[in-house]
């Protein structure tokens, strides 16, 4: 190989290396963009006439030490989203109050349809009449709050608060408390622990039964938490990755990306409703298992 034949090879190699570096850089940027949209942050973007307009939140507001662990409870982006969701729900409730009559009209009708659905199809069939009616407010709160948080993640400048594992862990912890409280109220405080080992079980199986039952009690709310979190995050990551694909590869992928993206958006809308319903219903089922009336 003479010197003339070697030169194009070097240029080609250099171009390949440059392309790879550029692709890696773009990949890095896309990854940062996806992480910025998924995780909690300290700034909120809002629509305005400028290119990038953000409100920076104070991250030093409520920081304190709790026995060696540094806890930061300042208001972050997901907290603001949760407050917006709660505010919207309160507004919805107040607006529906004006038209309450024997036959409700308008907004109250819609809300009543939802509440009756929760009461008649989720609460009472699983928990019996008394406990079902007692727990319906909690189930309604859970359902509407999770639904509002999920839907806020879909609007352009919003971020899904349920895409944060701490938020879903808090919701699952509330359900855990509700389940234990229901069980303890039905069976008495010590009766609840005695129920872990049912009657008629030989004495040498009792330790195994207690261990397995305790694991079950802890695993069920944990599964609730992870299910909601993973469903929300997976939907967002897929949509953002499809958009980011346009930047990493050429721009002509964009019709395909757009079509898939719109389809994933509808799927995520459906998944948002479904996951709120599933969370509520599994809470009702777990409570019903503990409050089961002896036939």
């Amino acid at each position, binding site marked *: 190989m003479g010197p003339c034949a070697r030169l194009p090879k070097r240029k080609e190699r250099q171009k390949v290396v440059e392309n790879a570096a550029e692709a890696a850089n773009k990949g890095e940027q896309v990854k940062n963009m996806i992480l910025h949209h998924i995780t909690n942050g300290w700034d909120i973007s809002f629509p305005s006439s400028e290119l990038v307009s953000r409100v920076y939140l104070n991250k030093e507001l409520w920081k304190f030490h709790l026995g060696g662990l540094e806890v930061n409870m300042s208001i972050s982006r997901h907290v603001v989203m949760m407050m917006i969701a709660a505010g919207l729900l309160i507004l919805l409730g107040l607006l529906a109050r004006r038209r309450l009559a024997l036959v409700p009209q308008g907004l109250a009708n819609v809300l009543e349809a939802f509440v009756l659905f929760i009461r008649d199809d989720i609460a009472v069939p699983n928990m019996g009449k008394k406990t079902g009616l007692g727990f319906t407010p909690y189930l309604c709160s859970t359902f509407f709050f999770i639904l509002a948080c999920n839907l806020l993640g879909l609007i352009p400048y919003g971020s899904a608060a349920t895409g944060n594992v701490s938020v879903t862990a808090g919701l699952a912890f509330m359900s855990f408390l509700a389940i234990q409280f229901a069980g303890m109220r039905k069976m008495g405080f010590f009766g609840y622990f005695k129920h872990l080992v049912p009657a008629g079980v030989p004495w040498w199986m009792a330790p195994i039964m207690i261990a397995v039952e305790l694991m079950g009690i802890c695993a069920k709310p944990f599964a609730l938490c*992870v299910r909601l979190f993973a469903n929300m995050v997976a939907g967002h990551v897929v949509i953002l990755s499809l958009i980011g694909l346009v930047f990493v590869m050429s721009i002509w992928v964009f019709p395909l990306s757009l079509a898939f993206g719109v389809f994933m958006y509808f799927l995520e809308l459906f998944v948002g409703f479904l996951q709120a319903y599933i969370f509520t219903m599994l809470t009702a089922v777990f409570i019903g298992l503990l409050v089961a009336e002896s036939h």
Partner: protein
Amino acid sequence: MIGGAYGIGRMAEAAMNGTSRQPTAAGDIRTTMIIAAALIEGVTLFAEVICILMALK
């Protein structure tokens, strides 16, 4: 994840079987199917989240 998809497919087949045998129980079967689908999806998405976390670390 493939196991999850296979499981949900099997369950949809069983649900349609049951509905065709007794059409009046279609609503109950549909509810049970949705519950079981969400539970299986939970396991699948758990695996996906672990994968994403490992890829982003």
